[in-house]
């Protein structure tokens, strides 16, 4: 079943992201994707995430497609101008890729080539508009295509717990207006804040999948609170992770197996998924290197 069909027919849809390698050994990323077979409706492939140079999202999505999986191509506007972005949308299409998540992208200065020229000829809204134009047979300059990628399925992101929130909401509306048919969100840890966000946009009928990032430690949670835009991990969750960390430290000192942190992380994610289920159309998992724990999270969430 395609991701588009899943959104249309299922009450609650799960997606998960995988990240291409910095190198040419695809074994690990393809194994992580294989773990998700039958468990998720689509697999996002990040596009030079965190502005770090690596294998492209298009190439990785193409390999997933060959394995019979359902890729969601992430495309950022940092590295390509409007010609290359539109060309890559067509190129992905001819490789069988239908789902595209359109993002502006982190700034080059945040990545591993901070001296690179940031492009941003388009942004998320105008990339969506470009994709929507291609679906209708026209490129951004108004030229006719000689054949049309009619089944391109475009999506966008939103940061539901941003401060201030209003600019995000305006942009979300513009993204939907420009052609976004599904929305995946930045990480949500505060379901109350997410519920308030959903109440702010009752008119939005586009399916929204709430973002879940696996917590790896209390330190990671504190770091995100201080440095990551629109991410807020409430204190009780940080405390839970800190206690699990302490138990693992003690266990290691006794020479025992330390698994409290992983188990706590899985439980927190599963709890978040259960709490978010009545509020939105699905969840989007971002395991950040912990892809091998995703099946356990989904099992614990009892979906």
């Amino acid at each position, binding site marked *: 079943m395609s991701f588009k069909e899943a959104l249309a027919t299922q009450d609650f849809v799960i997606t998960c992201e995988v990240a291409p390698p910095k190198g040419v050994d695809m074994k690990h990323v393809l194994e992580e994707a294989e773990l998700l077979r039958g468990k998720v409706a689509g697999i996002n492939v990040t596009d030079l995430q965190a502005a770090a140079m690596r294998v492209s999202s298009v190439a990785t999505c193409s390999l997933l497609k060959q394995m019979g999986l359902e890729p969601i191509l992430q495309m950022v506007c*940092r590295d390509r101008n*409007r010609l290359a972005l539109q060309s890559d949308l067509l190129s992905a299409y001819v490789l069988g890729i239908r789902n595209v998540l359109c*993002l*502006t*992208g*982190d*700034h080059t*200065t*945040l990545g591993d080539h901070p001296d690179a020229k*940031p492009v*941003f*000829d*388009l*942004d*998320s*809204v*105008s990339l969506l*508009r470009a994709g929507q134009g291609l679906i209708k047979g026209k490129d*951004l300059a108004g030229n006719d295509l000689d054949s049309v990628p009619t089944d391109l399925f475009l999506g966008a*992101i*939103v*940061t539901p717990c*941003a*401060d*201030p929130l*209003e*600019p*995000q909401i*305006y*942009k979300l*509306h*513009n993204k939907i*207006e*420009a052609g976004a048919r599904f929305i995946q969100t*930045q990480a949500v840890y505060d379901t109350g804040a997410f519920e308030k966000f959903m109440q702010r946009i009752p008119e939005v009928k586009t399916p929204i999948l709430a973002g879940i990032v696996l917590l790896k430690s209390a330190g990671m949670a504190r770091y995100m609170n201080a*440095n*990551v*835009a*629109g991410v807020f991990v409430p204190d009780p969750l940080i405390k839970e992770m800190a206690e699990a960390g302490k138990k693992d430290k003690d266990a290691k000192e006794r020479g025992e197996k330390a698994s409290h942190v992983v188990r706590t992380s899985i439980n927190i994610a599963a709890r978040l998924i259960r709490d978010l289920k009545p509020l939105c159309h699905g969840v989007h998992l971002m395991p950040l290197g912990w892809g091998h724990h995703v099946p356990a999270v989904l099992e614990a969430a009892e979906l």
Partner: protein
Amino acid sequence: MIASEPKPLDEILRQLENDQQVFVVACDGCSAGCKVSDPEHTEQMVKELREAGKTIAGLARVEMVCNAGLTALMLMQHLAAVNQADGILVVSCGVGIQTVAAAVEKPVHPATNSTYLGGFAGLWRSDPRCAECGDCMLDFTGGICPYTACSKGLLYGSCGGPNKGKCEVDPAVPCGWVRIYERLASLGKADRLKAIPPLRNHRHMLPAGARRQTSLWALELFEPEASEGESKAT
């Protein structure tokens, strides 16, 4: 110096759609040198605005609108007329337009497109900055330039990066789009962000070869009518 050219009258009138009473600020600096905001061309524009049914609440000429102190002083002298106006039309480069926007809580509209940074030695561009993009959208963004105030130069609103209103590139710098949102909200015009402006036309930023060879083109060679044909030729 920053070279500029006049926006077409119909674009200016579109910007002034909701503003009946218009206060005009005209610069006696660079844009006057470009024969855009000099007394003769300013008067001509004012005449055309009146013919189009607008009321001119007042007109102030400022030696250098980019000079914030000087501009504030001049606006103070015209305080009653400025207060009476629905909006302020600024005939200067993008720096001057942003200087007026920062000085007064009124909608500010650009009457020009800034196209080119000429090289008068020793003159440093003031803050706020103008990118001389040739397609001024300060009307849309409440007088704060998104090309220069946003680290990514985004046209369509905030990216996902700002953290508590600060830019992802430098936490010491406020997010340009949060500033634009706050400015528009304070003017009661935040809903303007629902509009999606046209794509940026980068051809405006590529002066023809002849222009690039001299910084005097704006003063001596530039013919506003020729600009469309020239940019097509590049």
